[in-house]
């Protein structure tokens, strides 16, 4: 079974979030980049499927600048067979649909039985790209999957839904997004890390993918501005007898917080 796993590099969960001076982006200065945690489940599942079926290849794909290379090497160290790095200055200004078009173009050139994503890239939390890619490929999709069973022609997925679970069956090729609980990702073996150096990691530009400027300049979603939540202020302890503190509280709620 041939599998594609799409990986996104995101801020480490420990990163301190800062807004860029123009307020239109989140600053990535000094930030540590990691594989999105949900994508780790997707990759792990692909490796397990390959181990269970004993055949096929796993291709890891990411779109982004040079800093994506270590993440793709990690995917190779964990068990992916090939990595595709989609890198082009034209990708810098695309929206989610542009990313989906690039991914779909890369997947079409590497036909597979299943495409796996994390359920969303941690940080931006949009979670729209898997559905767009499925649409562009004309493939069925199941999101928020916590269990996958495959056979030659179809895949059965258990999906997490509100208050329970749902079982869906899809014809292959299909798109699946991984939810926490799907598996427990492994740690890279040292021999795997050494072997990763010898596995192919190919760079692909927009031209390599047959994408022209109009496909990528069709930006429909613009990030207007970002705001950090208001900092929590220290608690204030009101002193005095109950009647007095109640009076003070009303004053504060009315005059300072302006909520009553």
């Amino acid at each position: 079974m041939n599998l594609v796993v799409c990986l996104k590099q995101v801020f480490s969960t420990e990163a301190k979030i800062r807004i860029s001076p123009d307020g239109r982006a989140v600053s990535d200065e000094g930030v540590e980049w990691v594989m999105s945690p949900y994508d780790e489940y997707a990759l792990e599942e692909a490796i397990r499927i390959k181990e269970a079926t004993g055949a096929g290849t796993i291709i890891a794909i990411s779109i982004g600048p040079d800093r994506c290379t270590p993440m793709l090497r990690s995917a190779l160290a964990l068990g992916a067979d090939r990595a595709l790095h989609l890198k082009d200055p034209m990708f810098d200004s695309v929206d989610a649909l542009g990313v989906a078009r690039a991914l779909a173009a890369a997947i079409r050139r590497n036909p597979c039985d299943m495409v796996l994503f994390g359920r969303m890239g941690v940080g931006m939390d949009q979670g729209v790209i898997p559905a767009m890619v499925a649409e562009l490929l004309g493939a069925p999709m199941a999101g928020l999957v916590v269990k996958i069973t495959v056979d030659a022609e179809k895949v059965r997925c258990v999906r997490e839904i509100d208050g329970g679970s749902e079982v869906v069956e899809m014809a292959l090729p299909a798109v699946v997004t991984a939810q926490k609980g799907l598996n427990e990702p492994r740690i890279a073996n040292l021999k795997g890390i050494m072997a990763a150096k010898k596995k192919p990691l190919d760079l692909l530009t927009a031209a390599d993918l047959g994408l022209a400027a109009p496909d990528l300049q069709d930006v429909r979603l613009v990030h207007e501005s970002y705001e950090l939540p208001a900092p929590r202020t220290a608690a204030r302890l009101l002193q005095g007898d109950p009647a007095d503190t109640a009076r003070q509280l009303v004053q504060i709620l009315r005059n300072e917080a302006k909520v009553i």
Partner: protein
Amino acid sequence: MGTPAVKVREGTPPADAPETEAPAGAKGSGGFLTSPVSAAGVFVREMFTPDQLDFADTARKFVDTEVLPRLDEIEHKKTVTVGDAEMLLVVQILKKSGELGLLGAEVPEEYGGLGLDKITGMLIAESMSGCPSFSTTVGAHAGIGTMPIVIFGNEEQKQRYLPLLASAEIVSCYALTEPGSGSDALSGKTRAVLNADGTHYAITGEKMFITNGAWADIGIVFAGIDGKYSAFIVDLRSPGVSRGAEEKKMGLHGSSTTSLTFDGTLVPRENLLGKPGDAATIALNILNLGRMKLGFGSLGTCKFAIDRTVAYGRERRQFGRPIIEFDMQKGKLGTMVARTYAVDALGYRVVGAIDAEIAKLPKGEGYQQAVAGVLRNFALEASILKIAGSETLHDVLDSAVKMHGGYGFVEEYHVERLARDNVIDMIYEGTNDINRMVIVDSLVRAIYGGVIGSREYMEQVDSALRTGRLEIPAVDGPLGQEVARVAAAKRAVAFAVNEMILNCGTDIKNEQQVMQAIADALIALYGMESTLARALAGRARPIPAAIARLIVHEGSQAIARLTAEVLSHVVTGGRLPAKLARLDALNRQHGAVVDTMALRTRIADSVIEAGKYNL
């Protein structure tokens, strides 16, 4: 790999080394004492390759997911059932780490390992820290229990044992110490006698304080053959081997420490490691490696303890504020961070220099012996690393416990256990006292042997001090003042070493307090120079530069005191006042007004903001 941004020239003796060569200090034997201060050729952690970072990541993730959540169970020696065999949890975790390849980093590829360099091996040791009971179990197995076979084993021994050790299918230990033979390690009474057929040695004797004693399958056991102290690979499942009860220890409760008694245990002749009489070579080389690993383990635990302390101090509020924001706490944190950075700098400097020397060796016959030769040349630096690592960790944990307040005294917050576990770091792999003597002993041998070309240097320093023309020119560029101060400190230490040699001669061995002071001065000097080199290699970014200023200042002060103490003791008669005055002049000339409090605050602030040690 970045070329260091700053080429430092001192302009005073000795002449700068040729530009293409790493400085003489990069060859070990204390050569740093007589080499110019330079960032050139100094390996720093900022030079790690992506692969090395990935290996470290695997090691850290393994500890985070498999070890730290189970520390209490490890501490109480919990057993688990694997298949139908019962084993200790810590042994099961050891075997899991073997599956990931974490135990075979330094085992050659042809014997089931990864054949990685020493830098990587040490980085893995650093990353598998914060869990000393587990780390010492790993160290006894993969370090001192495996490396004797890697370095001194013959082809048959390597093929037979190394693949099983790299994967931890069998567990090893190292049995040198005896009830009556601790620091005097080669005086053991255990005997090995060849049987009449010449097929087996019968080993008889008792070994003491053996890490992994309760569960090791094999051991590197030292015993005398007709008075020649030798090493054997012994199957501990054979008849005639008995294991003592677990020692009741101050710390490391999750590791096993027992005695091993051999009562005519038969060991096949082919299990002799090296030749009869090779014990000294094997034991001392392996100790060098073990000492460095211990230093790096301590380094990792320093960072772990700092992270815990920062996390606690940000969370814990008193007087309406997180306690880490209080100035006195910042002062302590700044010191913890700066000293940890210094151990990092000196540790990777040593191991980077070792790898550079090993890389020059031709592969093939005799390669491992040549590697052993390189390790031997760095005995002095390995001892510095062991002492600096374990004692820095001691001080870091002392502060960490106190900065946790009452919670520092209870198990739940890690630092209580770490503080107990750290004590042994200052005792095993050669006590720190013994290591101080190794430092001075190695230096004196290197000087007498002409290894580090020091005589001319010493004479130049002496004559320059006498005539008062020891001008260390101001160095332009960032940290120029610190470069001059390290250069001055080198001269002060060299002056004291020279006086020690001139006045004590062969009587040095009886002047252990002098040896101690000289060793401490050398440790301070190596630490401040390495810190400075690392900060310079990183283009003197603000926090590393602040750390370098602090460490150089504190080191200079310590060296001024230690060298004056040495002179006051060894220089006799009326010559003392003049000599002390020369030393004073040197120290005064390169003294500086440094606002250490502001530096500590600045260093602490950056770590508090990051929420963890991030250098």
